[in-house]
């Protein structure tokens, strides 16, 4: 048995007949071949699979594709616009906020969501607390924390520029 799901992913319509058990992350990776979203665990602990669904970050390993029918989904592949990196992506490179890169897409999506919820002036304690759902084994988080702080500030600058 399959069911039909359709959603908007990174601004494009996407639909498929899928096994009803299909998770959002499987739909993204296996059906749409958007392999930037990663799976690092099987208990919803690591956050490598974080994407933004209808404006809020979720762990895509924990949502059925069917439950996202009709939703607007943004993945790491949809963050850069017009050939220009998103400020949070740029901040991760600028601050050496990644090493192996596997947790990075989830970290960046979480960070973007954090800014949406918590604003542009994030102190270290807030960032560290808000990253509790994302595991990184390479960086010791030191440079991720710096990257998120810079990315938050740069998102404000970008938003202001857009408003002008």
């Amino acid at each position, binding site marked *: 048995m399959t069911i039909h799901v359709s959603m908007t992913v990174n601004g494009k319509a996407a639909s498929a007949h899928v096994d009803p058990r299909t998770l959002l992350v499987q739909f993204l990776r296996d059906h749409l071949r958007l392999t930037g979203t990663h799976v690092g665990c*099987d*208990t919803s602990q690591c956050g490598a699979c974080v994407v933004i669904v209808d404006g809020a970050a979720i762990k895509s390993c924990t949502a059925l594709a069917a439950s996202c029918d009709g939703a607007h989904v943004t993945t790491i592949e949809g963050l850069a616009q017009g050939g220009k990196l998103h400020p949070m992506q740029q901040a991760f490179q600028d601050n050496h906020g990644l090493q192996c*890169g596997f947790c990075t897409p989830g970290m960046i999506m979480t960070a973007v969501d954090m800014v949406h919820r918590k604003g542009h002036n994030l102190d270290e304690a807030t960032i560290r607390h808000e990253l509790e759902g994302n595991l990184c084994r*390479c960086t010791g*988080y030191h440079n991720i924390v710096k990257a998120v702080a810079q990315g938050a500030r740069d998102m404000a600058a970008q938003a202001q520029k857009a408003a002008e």
Partner: protein
Amino acid sequence: MSATGIGASVKRREDIRFITGKGRYTDDINREGQAYAFFIRSPHAHATINKIDASNALKSPGVVAVFTGEDVAADKVGGLICGWMIHSKDGSAMKAGPHPVLAQGKVRYVGDHVAVVIADTYEQALEAAGKVDVDYGELPAVSDTANAAKPGQPQIHDVAPNNTVFNWALGDKAATGAGFASAKHVTKLDLVNNRLIPNAMEPRAAVGEYDAGTDTLTLYTTSQNPHVARLVLSAFIGLAPEHKFRVIAPDVGGGFGSKIFIYAEETVCVWAARKVGRPVKWTAERSESFLADAHGRDHVSHAEIALDAAGKITGVRVHTIANMGAYLSTFASCIPTYLYALLLSGQYDIKNIYCEVDAVYTNTAPVDAYRGAGRPEATFLIERIVEKAARETGRDPAEFRRINFIKSFPHQTPVILTYDAGNYAGALDKALEMADYKNVGARKAASAAKGKLRGVGFSAYIEACGIAPSAAVGSLGAGVGLWESAEVRVNPIGTVEILTGSHSHGQGHETTFAQLVSSRLGIPIENVSIVHGDTDKVQMGMGTYGSRSGAVGMSAIVKALDKIEAKGKKVAGYVLEASDKDIEFKDGKFTVKGTDKSIDFGSVALQAYIAHKFSGQELEPGLKETAFWDPTNFTFPAGVHICEVEIDPQTGVVTIDRWTAVDDFGKMINPMIVEGQVHGGVAQGVGQALLEGAVYNKDGQLVTASYMDYCMPRADNLPSLNVATIETACPSNPLGIKGCGEAGAIAAPAAVINAITDAVGHEDVTMPATSQVVWRAARKAVTKRAAE
């Protein structure tokens, strides 16, 4: 120094694909017509396999095949190997039990691979696996390191009586004993180095493929050393000869040692691909990673240190029981021996050291290298007991270390190694300054006023890296040589491809290696690409572990670049009508000495390929050179880490208030990347000290088999780190590099536990020092204080 040259913190070039979701990890690779593998794993720690009935599974929808140990035996698929021979004190060879890729007659740990189901989809394979009926005959199990070799324990391998793999020793027992007999003070300490599960964020994965047209196997896999994987799968396991076998390790999401090894699952995928005539894909679920990735550490030790009246260390003796797990993994045997006991001299001038290591089998996952591999265990032991000795004799721990530091180089230790360069007091001085050590008393008082406990812990670590001279490791039992290779291909327009046998799985080689090449050849960094991780592109290599890619891998590139320069001079000589001996190469230009006649690197490359100027001469056309670099010594990164903690005795919560690291990694190519390596290493070391511990119960069930139960360090468990370096160049390689990948993980555990024991005022603190452990320790301190 140019903006992209050696010593510049160049932003990483590889980041662009990772931050945009364009990385290409093994699980991102899908091959036409692929089937999926699911491994049936033993639920028992120790059992005979009486019968496997797959008849119902074979009828399940989508199932392609079910294979068991009988199938791999029938195909003469060799067992997994351990590539380092260790001999016991009595001269006998280590007792290596058979390690089949699918169990044959017996399982020896929970997670042991029993059978594989291959189906059209992963879900179908999973469903069918539930229909495979395995009749186990359960046996008693032993998982406890300290007791595994005692009489009466269940016997895991017939070849290894008393579960003993080897009883190994290093050093002069009699001389060491004499030093103890005349000692003014002896400090004793029992230590457990807790078992860890590596947990690279990318789970292991494999896609095996067989091309019947060319009779060639291809394996895409999460490997730190694809050439070693191919060598073992070919020469020992016998799947196909190397010229018919390609191993590709694409982007790899962290390794920390756990992706060095040749595992059963990857082997089975590529073997089964030929059996079923379709590509076969497997990606570990995290729970499988917990069960079946090689674990790390797991030592139980007793240590003693002898001091003379002046506080000089006169001897160290150690007895360690090292848990090898149920089978010997690829490099398991060298970790608690040559990567451990050789480091027991630490940074100290010690006349005699004697160490005995008993390696034991248990019904647990195999144990092998994990970030630091033996050296963290040595550092933890020596830095804990040195700290304790200082406290017992009423000496400041920093000054006690200082009076015992090695001060001149080269220095021959009593445990094989010759340290080549270092400045241990220099690192200590800088660390004391950065940590504001002189005011720690005031901070302790301030904490006490709040009802908190504060402590400071030191770790003056040393490691042997850049592994290593082939002759040296060969004499110690290694089955391979540990050189590295490089090929420099200069294209006719002067762009350069570097093919390296090192493998990057987070280290940033695409940036650092390109910095080296760009600055050496005087060409833009954009004109350099780094190729690694594919046995069809790179001819041979030994891979990345032991902090060796800078010291060994880049040295090979330097050697190949020397040859490029030498040939470039010859080409330039023909073009400029001068002898190559009169040509100098600088800033990307070949110039006839003392003239303004010159030609740039790109033009020389073009001339090398069009060959008009030297056709028919001795000089061959083209510009491509290869080099193999075999180091002359290990490298010896060292430094001082200082951890300062504040403890809430009411809750046992430990807050790391400040972390100071001063490391000597020799010359640095990219300080930003070096600092990142220190941050990550310290996080793993703090994880070991405070949070992480693999727990098997007495039946051999892994109790900590998910992120719900195994506590990984998260962002709010860690502080920001104050990291600095000093530099003494390494004399044994052309760049003076020592290596930085493991230092943090080696240094950190002792610093943390020394800080906690300082805070609570006694030594009874085990790792991981969870809040419960620390709460108990703090209560003991409070009780002790009240009694006084």
